[in-house]
């Protein structure tokens, strides 16, 4: 197998005295989608935060294109090519839709993804570009959050629970953009509660339970039942 784009090796981390991850390893291949599943508290969001340096990690625990990046500061990762769509969207409420995208474009990498291209992908955002970002509906806000990740022209996007709190029909809209995103050469790690959806979407899967990897491999190797069992730690 080719050298992975992003790999996590034996990563342990947590909040203060509380350890939430115990020696987690995973590999994301170039141009691939990796599904990350697990129950609440399994450590998925913690893993994302540790990869991004919002929680403690050591230099060799995270590698990107074969280089250790565990000591790179959070704010430098977007220019390196790693961004996140955070849980709860976390749009900047003092900024308009367009400004949210502009900011991310200015502080990210230059490339084919621009705010205008995002407005093509999600036309509704173009119509509302001057509105305060937090005045939009939940689904539209999620589109802004995804757009904000895209305009940095990353190699990797970490999607954290992008369907959380959205109506099922809206979730379909949001996920409809995923193949297009992947087709433009962006790899992704997707955290999603809907195990079946993520199994169909992803190329490979990692299941976490209580801060440890309990299952990992190509997505087509697993049945829904297997995954569900691993999800619940059985």
């Amino acid at each position, binding site marked *: 197998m080719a050298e992975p784009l992003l790999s996590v090796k034996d990563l342990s981390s947590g909040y203060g005295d509380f350890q939430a991850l115990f020696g987690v390893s995973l590999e994301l291949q170039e141009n691939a989608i990796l599904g990350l599943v697990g129950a609440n508290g399994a450590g998925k969001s913690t893993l994302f935060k540790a990869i991004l340096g*919002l929680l403690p990690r050591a230099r060799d625990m995270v590698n990107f294109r074969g280089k250790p990046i565990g000591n790179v500061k959070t*704010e430098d990762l977007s220019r390196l090519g790693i961004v996140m769509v*955070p849980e709860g969207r976390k749009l*900047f409420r*003092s*900024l308009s839709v367009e400004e949210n995208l502009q900011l991310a474009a200015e502080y*990210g990498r230059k490339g084919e993804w621009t705010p205008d291209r995002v407005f093509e992908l999600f036309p509704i955002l173009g119509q509302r570009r001057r509105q305060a970002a937090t005045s939009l509906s939940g689904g539209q806000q999620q589109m802004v959050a995804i757009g904000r990740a895209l305009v*940095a022209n990353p190699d990797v996007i970490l999607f954290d629970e992008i369907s959380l709190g959205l109506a099922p029909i809206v979730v379909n809209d949001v996920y409809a953009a995923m193949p297009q995103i992947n087709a433009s050469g962006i790899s992704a790690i997707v955290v999603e509660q809907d195990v079946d959806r993520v199994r169909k979407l992803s190329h490979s899967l990692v299941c976490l339970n209580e801060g440890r990897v309990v299952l990992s491999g190509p997505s087509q190797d697993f049945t829904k039942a297997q995954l569900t069992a691993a999800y619940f730690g059985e």
Partner: protein
Amino acid sequence: MGIAEAIVQGVLLGGLYAIFAAGLSLVFGVMRLVNIAHGDFIVLAAYIALMVVSLTGLHPFASLLIVVPLMALIGYGLQRFVLERTLGEDLLPPILVTFGCAVIIQNALSALFSTDAQRLSAGSIETDSLQVAGLSIGVLPLLTFAIAVAIIAALEFVFFRSRIGRAFRATSDDPETAQIVGVSTKHVFGLAMALSFGVMAIAAVLLAARSSFDPFSGPARLIYGFEAVIIGGLGNLWGTLAGGIVLGIAQTLGAQISPSFQILAGHLVFFVVLALKPRGLFPRMD
């Protein structure tokens, strides 16, 4: 002096207060920090301008070319090396650190320069005046007011129309997400402080050309700036200018009653606004 002239003078004085306030307001807007030493740093800048003028023979206004960048550098350094360590949930440390700065600046300046009153000589502009509709209007106060309007317009532009302004607002909203997007929040905070200090330098030279100052003149400048912010309404820079004008008019009208009533009248208006309109006269709509 008639009432009309007092009001005009008050309006123009308000411009100076708005410049004191602008830097205070900017820093509070970006990082919720109140620099208790704001006025003392203005006085420090005035002493720096004094030294620059006496060393180079430059006109006080030309000295800004040196004083503004120097103050901005001091502000950036203060933020990155001192205040950065104290920002967080707890409001206490940054207040106490800037309070410590205030005491240090006051006493260090009086040890270095004595407590004698100093003044920057700006030449004939200090006393020039225009006659408009029977009123005598000083050129320097008028220029100060024009500069205040320009500074506030510039800060509004920076805050709401520029790249760094977007970073200011984003960092103020949610520092963690701002970092994920690629914004170095520590650098952004440093820049906000640098900008605030740059504005202080302008305030300092205008103040020093207008009236004498000594090492202990700082606290009053902080208080006038603060009153302008609260009277005008938080988070609204044009409101701050209006607040400064209200304060300026209150003071000049108060002085009409009795010289000892000048400052007190300003404080009383501040408390009346706080009692009747706690969000200020022109609160931000949101």
